[in-house]
C-alpha cells in the first residue's frame, strides 16, 4: 500500500490538539515543557471544558504559556500563580482553574504561595514542572537541584553542607490536609506521557468534585541548563532524577499512598 493511500483524513489517528495554538514553541529542542503543555490541553479538550478553564502562567521558560495554550490565561508574577489562581477560583468557583509552574517558581520564590494555597485547600490544579534548575535565566541552582548536581551557580556540584538539601515540595504538600490528589509523573517516553495525561485528567476531575488542591509534578529535562543533548538529558533524568524524585501517586482521594 502506498503511503499516499494511508495519509487521508479518514485514517487519522493522532494530531496536535487545536487547544495548542499554531505558534512555534519557544522551548529548546526536546524540552519536556512542550509535551506537558500538549497533554494538559488534550485533557481540557477531552473534558470539553475549554471555555470554562482559566490558566495561570508563571515566570520561567513557560512564561509565554498563554501564547501556546488556547484557553483564557493570566500571567502571574514570579511564584505568585497559586495566589492569583486562588483569587480567580474564589470569584468564579464554577470555572476550572490551574497554574503551570516551574520548580524555581513553585519551590523557591513561590514557596509561601504554594504551601498556603495547598494548606487552605484551594480547589485548583497545579501542574509543576520540576527540571531541578532555573532554566530560563541560564541554569542556576534551584532548591530542587540534586545533591552534587552541577549548575551555573554550583559549578563543582551542589554541596549539601553549604547549599542545603534539595526540597521535595510534592511530598511536603501531600502532608497537608488541603491537598486531595498529589502525584509525580514524567513525559520522556510514550508510556510516561500517557500516564501523565491520565494523572492530569484525575487532577481536573478532582477539581470538578471540589475535593481540594490537586498537584501533578512532572519531572522534566532541561537539556540546555544541564548542558546535554535532548535524548541524553532524558536518559540522565531516568538515571539521576527518578531515584531522588520517584514517579507515582503520592496521595489519592485525600489519602497518602504507600505510607508516604
Amino acid at each position: 500500500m502506498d503511503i499516499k493511500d494511508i495519509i487521508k483524513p479518514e485514517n487519522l489517528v493522532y494530531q496536535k490538539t487545536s487547544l495548542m495554538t499554531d505558534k512555534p514553541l519557544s522551548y529548546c529542542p526536546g524540552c519536556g515543557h512542550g509535551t506537558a503543555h500538549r497533554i494538559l490541553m488534550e485533557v481540557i479538550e477531552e473534558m470539553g471544558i475549554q471555555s470554562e478553564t482559566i490558566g495561570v502562567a508563571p515566570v520561567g521558560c513557560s512564561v509565554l504559556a498563554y501564547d501556546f495554550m488556547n484557553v483564557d490565561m493570566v500571567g502571574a508574577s514570579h511564584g505568585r500563580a497559586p495566589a492569583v489562581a486562588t483569587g480567580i477560583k474564589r470569584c468564579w468557583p464554577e470555572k476550572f482553574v490551574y497554574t503551570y509552574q516551574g520548580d524555581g517558581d513553585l519551590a523557591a520564590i513561590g514557596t509561601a504561595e504554594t504551601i498556603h494555597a495547598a494548606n487552605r485547600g484551594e480547589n485548583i490544579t497545579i501542574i509543576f514542572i520540576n527540571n531541578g534548575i532555573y532554566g530560563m535565566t541560564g541554569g542556576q541552582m534551584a532548591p530542587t537541584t540534586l545533591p552534587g548536581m552541577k549548575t551555573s551557580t554550583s559549578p563543582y556540584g551542589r554541596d549539601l553542607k553549604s547549599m542545603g538539601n534539595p526540597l521535595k515540595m510534592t511530598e511536603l504538600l501531600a502532608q497537608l490536609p488541603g491537598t486531595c490528589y498529589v502525584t509525580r509523573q514524567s513525559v520522556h517516553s510514550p508510556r510516561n506521557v500517557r500516564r501523565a495525561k491520565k494523572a492530569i485528567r484525575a487532577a481536573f476531575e478532582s477539581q470538578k468534585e471540589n475535593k481540594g488542591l490537586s498537584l501533578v509534578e512532572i519531572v522534566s529535562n532541561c537539556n540546555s541548563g544541564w548542558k546535554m543533548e535532548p535524548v541524553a538529558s532524558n536518559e540522565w533524568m531516568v538515571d539521576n532524577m527518578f531515584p531522588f524524585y520517584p514517579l507515582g501517586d503520592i496521595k489519592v482521594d485525600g489519602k497518602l499512598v504507600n505510607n508516604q
Partner: protein
Amino acid sequence: MAKMKGAIVVDLEKCKGCEVCRVACPNDVIAMTNEVNHKGYHYAYQEHQDACVGCANCAVVCPDGVITVYKVKLSD
C-alpha cells in the same frame, strides 16, 4: 490477523531535530535528514516506510507536537 500499517507526517519547518521521536519509535522508522530546515535543524522523517504501524508513540512524545499519524488496517 489484521495488520496495521501507518504513516507519519512531520511538519518539517517546525521540527527542532531533537530526536526524541526517533528513540521512542518501537520499529526504528524514523531517521534525521542530512539537510536542515529554515531554523537550521536536521528534521525527522519516516525512513522505513513499511515498518510504521501507526502506534503514535513518536507523536505523543514530540515536544513540539509536529507529528501527525495515520493508520489503516490491512486484512490478509
